[in-house]
């Protein structure tokens, strides 16, 4: 019985933390947010040097052959510093899709390129998790048409994996004829989500048309679990900043961290967040090892982390008083990242509704 990180995972955790803390300071975030692509070549190269871009890609395809928990360890650290890096789409969701549904040729074609940092992939699944604005993609005769919205990590992507309906996955190359990409300007500019309008765009099937529902679900589960890990990191950093600030800031001749009202606010955040850590570990473990529980855990970890993180975003800002509301503190980058993560791949309410159906509590 050992529920937690292995020695190797502790080392991975330490090295990724060291990297993000030294290489992705707040000043760099400010610059990158102005660019708004959700990507920076220097950060990407750094992750590549750490050998983590192919974290869940098997060694035979040039990856590191590590597990899903290793992937969430990395995602958590990226969330901790609100890193603009398309890791979620490219390194977690895309390989999950290709490994679940792709042919050997496709695995050989794409996976080594992803692991090497040469190929960045955007993921369009919103039409499965929540249709808005009549979005939807149809696949017919090797071509796709329609509209994909909130394509994750799409702004910097070299190619896209899109769900065409609930049981078909396709690959579309960036810049393909008939494809129009528009950045969706969300509150969170650390990530580049886009809209794709497709008019008879050439597409490559991943797996077979109409029979990849399980693979689509797997990609959504992977994405939700990783978003929960991102939320864990983002919220952990906010809590730390609240406590750090409260220990420095003085009013009425004492540090405000000695006021009970403020201590209780911080204690509440910590108490709500701490059990989330183990929940993320377990959900990540299920993605790889316990197929029966993978989807339920993905739903619950995503919605629970969203519910815990939102008050932390608010209360950390509150602890900073007026300064928290300004741009100077930079807290708002974390606040906004939590805001986007909460909605991506389904809001807490809609994800919980999926969990209800899954458990047979209501009919589908």
């Amino acid at each position, binding site marked *: *019985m*050992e529920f937690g990180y292995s020695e190797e995972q502790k080392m991975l955790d330490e090295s990724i933390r060291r990297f993000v803390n030294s290489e992705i300071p707040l000043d760099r975030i400010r610059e990158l947010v102005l660019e708004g692509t959700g990507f920076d070549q220097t950060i990407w190269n750094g992750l590549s040097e750490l050998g983590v871009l192919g974290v869940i890609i098997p060694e035979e395809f040039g990856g590191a052959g590590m597990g899903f928990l290793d992937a969430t360890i990395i995602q958590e650290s990226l969330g901790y510093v609100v890193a603009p890096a398309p890791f979620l789409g490219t390194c977690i969701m895309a390989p999950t899709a290709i490994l679940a549904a792709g042919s050997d040729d496709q695995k050989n074609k794409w996976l080594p390129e992803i692991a090497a940092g040469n190929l960045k992939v955007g993921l369009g699944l919103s039409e499965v998790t929540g249709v808005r604005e009549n979005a939807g993609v149809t696949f017919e005769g090797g071509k796709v048409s329609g509209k994909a919205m909130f394509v994750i990590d799409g702004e910097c992507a070299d190619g896209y994996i899109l769900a065409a309906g609930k049981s078909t996955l396709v690959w579309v190359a960036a810049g393909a004829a008939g494809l129009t990409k528009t950045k969706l300007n969300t509150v969170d500019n650390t990530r580049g989500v886009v809209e794709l309008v497709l008019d008879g765009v050439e597409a490559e099937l991943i797996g077979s048309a109409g029979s990849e529902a399980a693979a689509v679900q797997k990609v959504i589960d992977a994405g939700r679990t990783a978003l929960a890990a991102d939320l864990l990191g983002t919220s952990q950093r906010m809590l730390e900043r609240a406590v750090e600030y409260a220990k420095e800031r003085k009013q009425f001749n004492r540090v405000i961290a000695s*006021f009970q009202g403020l*201590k*209780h606010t911080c*204690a*509440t955040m910590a108490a709500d967040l701490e059990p989330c*850590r*183990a929940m993320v570990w377990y959900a990540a473990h299920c993605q790889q090892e316990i197929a029966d529980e993978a989807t339920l855990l993905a739903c619950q970890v995503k919605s*629970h982390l969203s519910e815990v993180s939102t008050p932390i975003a608010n209360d950390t800002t509150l602890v900073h008083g007026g300064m928290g509301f300004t741009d100077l503190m930079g807290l708002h980058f974390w606040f906004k990242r939590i805001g986007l993560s909460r909605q991506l791949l389904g809001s807490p309410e809609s994800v919980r509704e999926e969990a209800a159906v899954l458990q047979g509590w209501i009919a589908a």
Partner: protein
Amino acid sequence: MDLSYGTEYDDYRDEVRAFIKEHGHKSPASSKQGNKPDTEDKAWQKLLIERGYAARIIPKEYGGYGGEADLLKSVIIDEEFDGAGVSKGLGGQGISMLVPTLLELGTDEQKKKWIKPTLMGDIFWAQGYSEPGAGSDLASLQTKAHVEDGKFVINGQKIWTSSAHFADMMFILVRTEPDAPKHKGISYLLLPMDTPGIEIKPLVTMTGEATFNEVFFEDVKVPTDQIVAKRGEGWMVANATLKHERGMLGDPRQSSSLLHQVVALMNEESVNGVRLMDSPLFRDRLLKLQGRVMAMQYNSMRLLTNDLSGNTELMPILVVKLIGTHLNQDICGLAIDALGELGVLYDDSKYLRNSGMWQTRYMFMLGLIIGGGTSHIQKNIISEHGLGMPREPKPQLKA
């Protein structure tokens, strides 16, 4: 990540299951807890100790099973007995708190005299800690004892004393050194409840039950050798005991069991002809609670691993009581709301659901939010010990 306990433990689990299958029918009902042990309770306890399912690691010479500490075996016993709804033997503060304390700090004579009859249910103990003026700030307790003719003479009052009305003995904290600093002036004494000068008044709680008492002491005389450790060391002794109490309040196994009962309730009950589970509002509350319960269950797995590996990280332990007790009350609250007007029926009624347990539990959970260190105290502990935030400065008295 390795979530298996290993074959040795799988075998042990089979053994426990076989025992429950063969003997489970002899288990006393859980509703009997909180009463003085009767013959049935004692017989079950004796059997459990013989087989190593109770008093597992207490040495044989003191009436225990004499096994080696094995956390996973203890966890398996808990899981299997709880899962089967079978009693894990006698409870009470004598077994959970006094026995471990005596093992650690008692004299040989004290161990021989008290531990065995306590384990067997022949001596039932009450705990005399809290006072009307000493709740969260327990060390400020004022019940006094001075020595006169070779005896401690106790005067004062205790409150929140569970089981005092049927207990045989009490372990009590009293102030014996009035001039010492507050933590250094306390002693830990053992006394029979039939000593002259003790008056017990039941304290009826909001649930309508009197599980607690007020206990008044007027010139109550206790031989001076009825002390654990030395005079003035009582605070240290009590803290050795308190550490054995940790983790009992807010256990996620209880949350999970309550949640399952609400799922069943919402599947069965309907309002305006609509099944409660088909109401999106109630369903979403249920699912939110399920997420919270899950987080606490995995936190428990993390704590188990920490205990096994000697990892002493504080935060995952510190949050259990605060989060767990509120979570349990919220679950009961959903059951009551799901029942609506039926949910407020309390005493005998033909419309009562689950024997009226939801209201009782809801109120009882509030008691647990308060008892064992209120939520406010828990938040002080989390912020000070977990987050390193400073204590609130003492008020400056103006001259």
